[in-house]
């Protein structure tokens, strides 16, 4: 049985278990549910829990682990001398999987019998053309070792699937039997379900934490790998970024970091005043009718995918800026040579951040207690005096926190930069020049035919790690400030 069928069967068993458990406990008290320790539903849910959860965990673990076992087994069938290194073995193994899949398909479509699929040999059959008939195209003729490995792979997979069906169903049946027999009026089903819910929540939380941890660890290990190939000191201090896959690359992060910070700075210069003023207008001046229209509109702006902003930068803002600041442009300054520039990306990124800044600031300004406003109005202050002298100072720490969060988003932004800022790593003060950022370079180092073991590719991890540390620091600092501010009014 395939895993998805198994899942459906499991669910069916549990649904049945729910009603069986419920009716058993009701029968045990002759339908008088007041004698029960828990509500009848809890007895049903308890049966569902013990039936479904262990079986489901086993199923998931099996589905994850079986391919690895099958692959290892198949790999051991291929003689060591047929491949040079791990990369070549990986290529061979993908052939093995294709052939195994092809054989499966052939059996399914009736092109081969089960025995044929198990026994065919390269000497007697033209595997390539036989598999071609069922629509699996192979690049070359099949090596005997590879075919044997594919057959072994199929063997393990088929046996494994069969074993899995038996084991999972047995576990489900055992769980069902155990909880069903235990169901009686004194069973504390309500508490058991409570434990189950707790376990579910803890499980979800740990998955979230563990994956994050996994990502960070893989970043760290690959970064260490990179620093083995390329000196860390050069990486952090070199002023040039010129990767070349032939070797002799200069991989200094400083030009990229400079581009990142410069673009983020311009983005914040655009986003902070506009976002903040919009927030002040919305929270202090706008009537509730205006607010109910404008707030959702701003939130729509926040929902636009950044690639769309990138297009906007490339096709609209860039050319527009060239028309103003370019040679022969509106101002006749000739500062800007092409559409892609720090300014283009910065402005568009700023637009992207406006709703972010304004909605955070709006929340923070709204959190300033009404009594502050009353106090100020009561002393004969006007609205703008109240905002400037009471509300903004009171909200300032929170607003700073919001700005830092916006900054960390700006630093991590990629698509707008890829499309709007250009690809040249430069240390320049001219905002009309094309520059690039850490994120954009991570993209360019990993796309294309890079060898993932070379420093030119691994540098992406070191760049990612640096970015991660910076944004993490900013976020922690911002949250600290925001939290400190919240406490002030509690």
């Amino acid at each position: 049985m395939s895993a998805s069928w198994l899942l459906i069967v499991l669910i069916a068993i549990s649904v049945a278990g729910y009603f069986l458990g419920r009716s058993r406990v009701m029968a045990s008290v002759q339908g008088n549910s007041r004698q029960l320790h828990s509500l009848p539903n809890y007895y049903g849910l308890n049966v569902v829990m013990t039936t479904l959860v262990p079986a489901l965990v086993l199923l998931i673990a099996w589905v994850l682990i079986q391919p690895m076992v099958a692959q290892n087994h198949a790999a051991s069938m291929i003689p060591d001398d047929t491949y040079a290194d791990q990369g070549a073995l990986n290529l061979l193994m993908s052939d093995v999987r294709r052939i195994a899949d092809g054989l499966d398909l052939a059996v399914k479509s009736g092109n081969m019998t089960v025995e044929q699929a198990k026994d065919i040999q390269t000497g007697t059959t033209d595997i390539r053309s036989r598999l071609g008939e069922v629509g699996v195209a192979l690049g070359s003729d099949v090596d005997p070792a590879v075919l044997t490995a594919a057959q072994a792979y199929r063997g393990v997979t088929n046996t494994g699937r069969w074993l899995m069906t038996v084991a999972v169903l047995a576990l489900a049946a055992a769980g069902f039997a155990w909880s069903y027999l235990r169901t009686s009026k004194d069973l504390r089903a309500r508490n058991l379900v409570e434990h189950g819910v707790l376990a579910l929540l803890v499980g979800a939380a740990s998955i979230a934490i563990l994956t994050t941890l996994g990502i960070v660890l893989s970043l760290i290990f690959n970064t260490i790998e990179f620093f083995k190939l390329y000196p860390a000191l050069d990486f952090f201090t070199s002023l040039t970024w010129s990767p070349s896959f032939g070797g002799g690359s200069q991989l200094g992060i400083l030009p990229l970091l400079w581009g990142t910070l410069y673009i983020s700075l311009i983005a914040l210069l655009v986003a902070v005043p506009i976002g903040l003023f919009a927030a002040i207008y919305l929270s202090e001046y706008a009537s509730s009718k205006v607010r109910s229209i404008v707030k959702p509109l701003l939130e729509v702006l926040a929902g636009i995918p950044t690639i769309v902003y990138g297009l906007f930068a490339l096709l609209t803002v860039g050319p527009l800026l060239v028309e103003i600041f370019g040679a022969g442009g509106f101002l006749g300054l000739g500062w800007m040579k092409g559409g892609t520039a720090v300014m283009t990306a910065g402005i568009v990124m700023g637009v992207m951040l406006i709703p972010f800044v304004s909605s955070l600031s709006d929340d923070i300004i709204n959190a300033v207690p009404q009594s502050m406003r009353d106090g100020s109005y009561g002393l004969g202050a006007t609205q703008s005096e109240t905002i400037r002298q009471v509300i903004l100072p009171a909200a300032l720490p929170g607003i700073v926190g919001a700005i830092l969060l916006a900054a960390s988003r700006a630093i991590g932004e990629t698509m707008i930069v890829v499309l709007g800022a250009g690809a040249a790593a430069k240390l320049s003060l001219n905002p009309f020049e094309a520059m690039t950022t850490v994120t954009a370079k991570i993209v360019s180092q990993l796309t294309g035919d890079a060898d993932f073991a070379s420093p030119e590719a691994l540098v992406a991890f070191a760049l990612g790690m640096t970015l991660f540390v910076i944004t993490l620091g900013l976020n922690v600092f911002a949250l600290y400030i925001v939290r400190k501010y919240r406490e002030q009014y509690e």
Partner: protein
Amino acid sequence: MKDMLIEERTAMEDVKISAKDVNVWYGDTHAIKDVSVEIKDKTVTAFIGPSGCGKSTFLRCINRMNDTIDICRVEGLITLDGQDIYDPKVDPVQLRAKVGMVFQKPNPFPKSIYDNVAYGPRIHGLARNKAELDEIVENSLRRAALWNEAKDRLQSPGTGLSGGQQQRLCIARAIATEPEVLLMDEPCSALDPIATAQVEELIDELRTSYSVIIVTHSMQQAARVSQRTAFFHLGSLVEYGETDRIFTNPVDPRTEAYITGRIG
């Protein structure tokens, strides 16, 4: 004839605030119903009545704080020194500088003690230089009986004071703008008995220069600090008169029921 004119004039001069047929609605809620009252100058007037009877609402009409509430609608005539305060010519912001307000919960700004008190004078340009401002701050804090406790920590945040000190800071802040009327909405409800006693003493002190209106839930407090008392019930002004008389010899049965603890 001549005598009567003089008597009328003194009566007029005596009246600081006069309200005629005031009605207030919050949307469809009729919160104040046909209230007419004359508040005397240099007197402490207490507003008493059960919760929700509209004391705060009426108080907020007097400095037009209700303007800041969208759904609130005020009708009727309220005059301050004979001037209609709801006249379009009157700037509510200017009015609030003349009619100070102290709130139920102490609400010092998150600024230093000095800046809290200097807030009003700075906005209204009451001081020509730093020395004058210092003097205003010192005088206000002295009048609010906070100077001795605060003089060594003028630059520390006002929010760091105790509840009673914060409330006296708010009073100092209100009197620093040199108002003519001081509105106090349950100024002692968040305070302990000692702080309450200090604030009450202060209110008695303030009577020499201001017309003070205090909303209170405590009958004893009304009896201790006020000369006149107004009893509100369900949005109407039921009885208004000398405090002693209201407490010893109420005319309306509802007033009697309230002060003897049967309504409220």
